């Protein structure tokens, strides 16, 4: 990796030759003496094909021995142009794009998107819909955190917690399946409500999960939390202070582990989160261990919220009773003229939006998940749809966190940030 410099003539008034044309720039590289080969930094690619990058992330590492001198995340391998695609789809068609972004907690993305559209259109969803959305969002917070927990454990060398976590994830997969028919690409929400109401026995199934999940979490807790090796691998690794965490724009557990008590559910509550009794774990050291503890506690708090939400789940319709927003039932379409017209209009045109723009942020499983939509008067498609993906912002801190640590720590730090490449690359 000898350094070579190339000198280019970039002056505004290039030297002219005798023929009146500018002289050719000296493009040929000028060889300089090879530097001393004694201590050279090794350039190593971690990813895009690597067991510990959690997707197709490429980390270009400069190593001095095993110490990370610098690390540059190279993203975009999974770029699918979701935001641009959204501009060619009606409001409800976009829902299917959202769960492909965070396939680890798809329902949160589904909800976040329709919430921003509902805010734009000024739609107030029904009480039942609110509680159902709180339930599915908290369920997927556990879903996302469990994947993080399992893969982090694998990255630190403990294989067993991974399988314990995935057995619990499997139960949530089953819940997804019975609610939406799909295990990952749920697409469960619609503007003004849900694709369908909760199926029969779904709450029992969820209760069954909630009964067994804390035990499994306790088992993983016993395997990792007090384990000296795990502590040695995580404490004091990837430390970020509160002020720097804010400067980097970290959100979610990464920010709270640094000691900043910011949780969108508490600070800008939506869906009556202020009436739920739950606590937000705050760390103080901002290292991997605090991030670990915060997420573990968040899962327990999510169980609390889920239990309260199940208790207060009201009856009534799940969709707003507005024929311009919600699809009528199929029976009505077939028998009632007016319903059929509404159905036709909704399917062919879509829901008309007022002119304006709207930003709506919720607490996703990875941090503050913001959705920004711009609409023109009567438009059935967004003019611009923009997402604030928490993973994307969180990943930007990785060079700061990893510099000076060992390669093993870089893997641990990357795992502790809890990123998902779907939403980073979008």
């Amino acid at each position, binding site marked *: 990796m000898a350094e070579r410099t190339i000198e280019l003539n970039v002056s505004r008034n290039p030297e002219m030759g005798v023929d009146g044309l500018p002289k050719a720039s000296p493009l040929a590289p000028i060889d300089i003496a090879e530097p001393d080969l004694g201590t050279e930094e*090794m350039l*190593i690619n971690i990813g895009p094909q*690597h*067991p*510990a990058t959690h997707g197709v992330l490429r980390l270009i590492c400069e190593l001095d021995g*095993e110490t990370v001198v610098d690390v540059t995340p190279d993203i975009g391998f999974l770029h699918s142009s979701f935001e641009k695609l959204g501009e060619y789809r009606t409001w409800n068609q976009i829902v299917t794009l959202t769960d492909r972004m965070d396939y680890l907690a798809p329902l949160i993305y589904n909800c976040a998107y329709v919430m921003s559209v509902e805010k734009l259109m000024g739609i107030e969803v029904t009480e039942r819909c609110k509680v159902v959305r709180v339930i599915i969002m908290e369920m997927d917070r556990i879903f996302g955190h469990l994947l993080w927990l399992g893969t982090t*454990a*694998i*990255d*630190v*060398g*403990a*294989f*067993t917690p991974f*399988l*314990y976590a995935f*057995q619990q994830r499997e139960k949530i997969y089953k819940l997804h399946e019975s609610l939406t028919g799909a295990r990952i690409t749920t697409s469960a929400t619609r503007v003004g409500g849900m694709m369908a109401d909760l199926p029969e026995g779904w709450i029992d199934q969820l209760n069954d999960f909630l009964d067994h999940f804390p035990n499994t979490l306790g088992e993983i807790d016993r*395997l*990792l939390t*007090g*384990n*000296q*090796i*795990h*502590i*040695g*691998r995580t*404490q*004091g690794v990837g430390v970020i202070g509160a002020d720097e965490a804010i400067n980097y724009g970290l959100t979610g557990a990464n920010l709270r582990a640094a000691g900043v*008590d*910011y*949780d969108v559910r*508490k*600070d*800008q*509550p939506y869906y009556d989160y*202020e009436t739920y009794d*739950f*606590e*937000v*774990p*705050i*760390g*103080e*050291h901002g290292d991997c*261990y*605090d991030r670990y*503890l*915060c997420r573990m*506690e968040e899962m327990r*708090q999510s169980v609390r919220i889920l239990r309260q939400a199940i208790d207060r789940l009201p009856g009534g319709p799940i969709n707003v009773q507005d024929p311009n927003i919600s699809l009528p039932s199929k029976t009505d379409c077939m028998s009632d003229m007016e319903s059929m017209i509404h159905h036709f209009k909704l399917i062919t045109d879509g829901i008309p939006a007022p002119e304006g723009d709207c930003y709506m942020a919720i607490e996703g499983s990875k941090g503050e998940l913001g959705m920004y939509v711009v609409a023109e008067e009567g438009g059935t498609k967004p003019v611009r749809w923009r997402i604030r993906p928490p993973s994307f912002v969180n990943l930007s801190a990785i060079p700061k966190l990893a510099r000076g640590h*060992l*390669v*093993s*720590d870089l*893997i641990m730090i990357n795992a502790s940030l809890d990123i998902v490449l779907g939403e980073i690359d979008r």
Partner: protein
Amino acid sequence: MDYQPISGVWSYVAMSLKVTLIFTVVMVVVAYTTLAERRVSAWIQDRHGPNRVGPFGLLQPIADGIKNILKEETLPATASRVFFILAPILVLFPSLVTFAVIPIAAPLPTPAGVVDMIIADIPIGILYVLAFSSLAVYGVVLGGWASNNKYAFLGGLRASAQMVSYEVALGLSLLAVLMLAGNVTLTEIVWQQQQLGMWFAFPLSLAFILFVISAFAETNRLPFDMPEAESELVTGYHTEYSAMKFSAFMISEFGHMVTASALMATLFLGGWDLPGSWDNAHWYQGQLISGFAADGSVILASPALWKTLATFGGFAAKTGFFLVLYIWIRWTLPRFRYDQVMSLGWKVMLPTALAYAMLMAGTILTLDEIGLAYGFGYGLVLTAVSGMATVGFVFMLDRGRTITGAAAQRTQRIQTKTIQVGEAGHPQPEEAA
């Protein structure tokens, strides 16, 4: 009855039979350890494990072997051809050859004479083991270097540093055993444990713990699997290997495990010795004796086929215990970081082993000066001294002096705060507008 060691042409027959038998048994045990690892890990992790090939998946190792032979051998274009091929051979050889000096059962009486159940009872037993186990690192380093792959290169570097470091602790922890046994031959070490009336795991408990830890590091098993570390270095030094060459690395890893387990069983759990002195047998001045009477005369041993089989069963059980321990720990613990492994090796294991060797040397010298007879009482005194040393060692480790920050782990580091709406000082959407 006067027993004589087997001699003449029959000794060659016995030797070739023993070599064939032990090699076969070790290879089969290696193959079935891979299956055991997968089944035990499945059991730990609440899943099934391989159970399709044959009853309970018992034919799985054979299927794996066939698959590995049939797969394509890859040779990276930039690899150093000779060393790339040499590395798996170099790593496989020492892991199997070490078994030659480990006695596996009580001597077997045959019409042609008594057969020692050991391939080569060479007088430098342990030194031979140490020499050959150190050779294994050459294969690993060469494999990592010859692949011309950065991950493999880092893996090879880690392997060399780690194995060299733990070799020191391993050797030093053995000092106490050698001092107590007064010999480096493994048959002699088994005999001394029979004479002492207790296995060396008790009178030399700290050496036992240090040896087990070092053996884990020597065999590159989790939590010391730095050279492989699949989540960091993909699979480390054998990243570029495929098919049978990869299989050779796997066989050597499991071969090392089996050899290390057998060695730990021999050094600290009495080898093939079973409780009681009925099975004792040792060559002493041309006679096969089972012990000494109070007046110093010898008691002749009476070897028998059933005794050989029973002691072999005991040896297999002890070795199996360590194999299960290996597997159990691998699927329970996370992995150390590279620098933590080194600091554990140099800052904890080495000084502890040194201090312990000094302590044991002093104790043994004192006991010999007092004139305490080598026997059960002798062992009890050593057990007491070692027990205190072990408690001190564990106490030191448990107080987080080895791993940075571990002392703080008992204190609750996370506070849960109930934030009231608006209390945290973040503007509400309405206020902000």
